[in-house]
């Protein structure tokens, strides 16, 4: 599989009154074509920042400090605004986390489809538009006639989320990025969306990137998992390997904290300590205050992003020193 998006040393911060929040700090990541990549981390670990910085859709107080995002050999970050506007949605579509408020309350659903098409200079007749929109809505298992003529307030949360996905698929994008597609939804609707994404993956030739705090969702859907902690990427591997043999102490903690229905409660181990403040992140490895394997060097030096055998990438001093986790 070839690489469709290559992220190199991406740094993004948010400017707030108290200083700068270092939400994405030196992220390097290769996204493979037609694969499903999950970006997993706790809340406020900088997951959304990565994908928003990649697509240059950070909120107004967000700033990209450095890095490159190569898509088909071109850097999205230095591209002219007009050129980027054309790629957005047509080739790279991003469904934001706030699905509940992402539709214009005074416009019918169909109008959202219409202006999206118009924005990209696609010349479809009205009946063509209805046909294409209906096709995508059926794909996400919504009833097109009812939904297209509804206003957002007439739709439930799960329906709105699916409308956004249908809207994202409208122009057959190459890459579809979803920010927390299942959070803020009830368990049944969550299962529905996951099922839906699985089907899309089978039906379409598409590269999916999604952000989640729920590692179980990642296990269900993803081919590859990137684990992020405190604005740093700590591990990137195939889903199978991540679960079978987690390399980073944080990944291991994350997997140990999953609660299965039939799990033995005594074996569920939460990670001790609190997530780091990104305003004043810890020195060296940002995980060191919570890490049971922390060494002297972990407090001083930031671990390098190293490639181990196969697809495995990890940022941990244990591996730099050749003392892998057992």
């Amino acid at each position: 599989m070839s690489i469709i998006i290559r992220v190199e040393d991406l740094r993004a911060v948010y400017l707030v009154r108290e200083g700068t929040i270092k939400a994405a700090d030196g992220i390097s990541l290769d996204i493979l074509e037609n694969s499903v990549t999950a970006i997993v981390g706790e809340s406020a670990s900088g997951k959304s920042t990565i994908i928003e910085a990649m697509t240059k859709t950070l909120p107004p107080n967000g700033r990209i400090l450095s890095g490159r995002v190569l898509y088909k050999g071109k850097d999205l970050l230095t591209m002219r605004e007009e050129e980027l506007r054309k790629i957005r949605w047509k080739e790279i579509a991003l469904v934001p986390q706030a699905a509940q408020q992402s539709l214009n309350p005074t416009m019918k659903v169909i109008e959202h489809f219409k202006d999206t098409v118009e924005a990209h200079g696609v010349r479809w007749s009205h009946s063509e538009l209805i046909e294409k929109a209906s096709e995508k809505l059926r794909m996400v298992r919504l009833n097109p006639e009812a939904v297209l003529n509804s206003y957002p307030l007439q739709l439930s949360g799960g329906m709105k989320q699916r409308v956004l996905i249908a809207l994202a698929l409208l122009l057959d994008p190459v890459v579809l990025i979803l920010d927390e597609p299942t959070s803020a939804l009830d368990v049944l609707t969550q299962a529905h969306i996951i099922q839906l994404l699985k089907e899309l993956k089978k039906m379409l030739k598409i590269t999916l990137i999604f952000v989640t705090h729920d590692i179980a969702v990642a296990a269900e859907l993803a081919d590859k998992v990137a684990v992020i902690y405190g604005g740093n990427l700590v591990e990137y591997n195939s889903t199978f390997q991540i679960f079978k043999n987690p390399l980073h102490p944080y990944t291991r903690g994350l997997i140990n904290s999953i609660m299965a229905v039939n799990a033995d409660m005594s074996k569920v181990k939460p990670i001790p300590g609190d997530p780091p403040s990104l305003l004043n992140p810890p020195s060296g490895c940002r995980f060191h205050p919570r890490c049971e394997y922390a060494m002297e060097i972990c407090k001083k030096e930031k671990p390098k992003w190293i490639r181990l055998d196969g697809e495995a990438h990890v940022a941990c001093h244990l591996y730099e020193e050749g003392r892998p986790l057992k």
Partner: protein
Amino acid sequence: MNYFVNRLLYLLVVFVIAISGVFVLVNNMPGDPAYGLAVYIAQQRNMQFEQALEIAHKMMGIDPHESVVTRYVKFMNNLLRGNFGYSTFYNTSVNEIIARALPWTLFVISLATFISFSIGIYLGAFAAQKRGKTIDTLISTLASIIQAIPPFILAVLILFVFSVRFRLLPLGGAYPVDMEPSLSISFIGKVLLHAVGPILAVAIPQMASWTLSMRGNTAQVMEEDFIRFAEMRGLADSVIASKYIRNNAMLPLVASLAIGIGYMLGGQTLVESIFNYPGIGFYFGKAIAVRDFGLLTGLFSLIVIGVIVATFVADFVYALIDPRVKLK
């Protein structure tokens, strides 16, 4: 549909309460409303005051021995038939005065509102989009100051500067006294020129307050998630500015627009008095000055009806443009 029936019933109740309030208020005013007219008749016809008072009562349709309830029923009955009462000062029915004055008031108010609303919306949206820049600070500061100027002060100022000092505008009235109303270009021109003063006095403070409201609403809408999502979809800035930002920011203002027109029917008493502009406000001021109870009651009722109709229109318009109201 249910929504409108509800609103209509609600406004009907408001109407009865408000009109009853007008009745109670005027009914409890000290003095006989026919007193002034009786004095006038006694002088004119050189007759006894008691006799003149009786005639005056007859002319005004008042029976001093009637109970309050009968009078109330009569008053309501008259009003529902579209009879607003009798003006003793002008010696004519209030309906006639309304017919004469209402067009002028509606003319000035609608023009002033239209101008101030269009400019205010534009300035407010513009300021919000330049938030934090010098031009925004300038617009908001000026608007805050201008908004606080009472229209009648502005009216005196305009009259003094443009009419007295520079003689650019006429001193008062709706058209020159020596001109016969006609549809000629020169007459229409004069009418417009005479309306400039009152329109400016009403429109300028209003424009400032539209600007401030629109700026606030726009700034709020710009923070909404659906704006960012529209940007993510690659929509052009102009589409986002109009269909996404302006339409949503304007919604609450359209409702206040309709209600505002209703209130202004009687709210510009001082401005119209200063410009001697023969609108409802002018007659209202006159009625207070000469204690013309009949005219006062009639105009009061008209204003109440105006506000209620405007409220209903506002509800209707709001439901028409905001699906959230209609569908709930």
